């Protein structure tokens, strides 16, 4: 069992409620924009506190309202690839990649080659294209040796060839590294190809 979520949170007028009890592999959150998919990722990452419910990943409780458990975001070991790259603008690509590096992560050089970003290491983030920045953001998340991955539309703003490469990478992370993955998308094709299961929001 990877993601065991039971979350509610009021956001102004709307209320986000979500109950997912997913097995291993990649769980897709599928639905239209504005349905609160990103909010769910934020609650799993510990960036937004749910009003009630619990967050358990791989059997470990990260949040439980009733028991007063709320593990800080910095200790949850989430590999969070945000919708926008969120690279640190004052650090070069190399420093961005290594910002959260932890022992036991994928091999740095291998990851760099895999993502095709070897030629970007000495560049500043503001000089990168959208697709390049996205790949650096994915690399940064992977090198922090995460216990699980949160991917918010990881394939948007990538060209066809790069999309295919990243999809293969995600499949590899899903199948060989056995990382539990929670991925948000509104692309049906992506969802059916990558998802072990699809949760409609």
């Amino acid at each position, binding site marked *: 069992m990877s993601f065991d979520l039971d979350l509610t949170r009021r956001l102004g007028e709307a209320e986000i409620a979500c109950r997912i009890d997913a097995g291993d592999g990649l769980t897709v959150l599928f639905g239209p924009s504005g349905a609160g998919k990103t909010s769910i990722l934020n609650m799993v990452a510990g*960036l937004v506190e749910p009003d009630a419910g619990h967050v358990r990943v791989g059997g470990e409780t990260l949040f439980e309202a009733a028991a007063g458990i709320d593990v800080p975001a910095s200790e949850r070991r989430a590999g*969070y690839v945000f919708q926008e790259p969120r690279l640190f*603008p004052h650090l070069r690509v190399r420093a961005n990649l290594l910002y959260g590096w932890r022992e036991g992560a994928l091999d740095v050089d291998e990851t760099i080659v895999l993502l095709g970003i070897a030629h970007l290491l000495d560049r500043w983030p503001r000089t990168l294209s959208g697709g390049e920045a996205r790949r650096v953001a994915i690399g940064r998340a992977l090198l922090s040796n995460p216990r699980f991955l949160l991917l918010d539309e990881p394939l948007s703003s990538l060209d066809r060839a790069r999309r295919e490469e990243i999809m293969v990478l995600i499949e590899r992370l899903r199948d060989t590294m056995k990382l539990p993955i929670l991925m948000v998308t509104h692309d049906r094709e992506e969802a059916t190809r990558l998802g072990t299961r699809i949760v409609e929001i």
Partner: protein
Amino acid sequence: MTPELWGIVWLSLQVGGVAVLACLPVAFGLAWLLARGRFPGKLLLDGLVHLPLVVPPVVTGWLLLLAFAPTGPIGGWLESWFGVSVLFRWTGAAIASAVMALPLMVRAMRLSIEAVDRRLEQAAATLGAGRWRVFASVTLPLSLPGVLAGTVLGFARALGEFGATITFVSNVPGETQTLPLAIYAALQTPGGEGLVLRLAGLSVLLSLAALLVSELIARRAGRGLHVL
């Protein structure tokens, strides 16, 4: 440039420099509180910080005099614990300059802290950075341009400080007589026009240089360039 003139310039730079450096951590702390804090009385604190900007400097100087006089709350404490007094001393001039520079510094720093993208801090947190690392590695470097610009602006303000200084620590040559005070004294002296001209010229040059540096830093920051 006569030695006397150099002495005045040097004293001004010393008073302004010490004032701004001592003020820096306080200003940054206040800017941080005002930008990020949520607490009752925030509006009041904001008002108090900005008070020296709008109150007549003479009043600020008089309030400082009350506080730092040997019988005052801070002055009495300094006297009994350290046996020192800042009255008629350059340290007092630095205190007056610091108080007058504080609002300008806090304003610039607060704006730059507010401009830091909180989403970057969130990203740092998910990568395992605790609060202090997030602050030191993301928030501080990204707000640094504003901090530096505010510091230079504060320094320029400190160089021009007159009203609070002359009220608080008087006009003692070689001790509290900074550029503006020296100009005032020269104006009161018959035949002092030549000295006034030279002092005023120096004063304009110094202020202009400080403003230019502040503007350069702000521009570089505005283009997303790195200040350091």
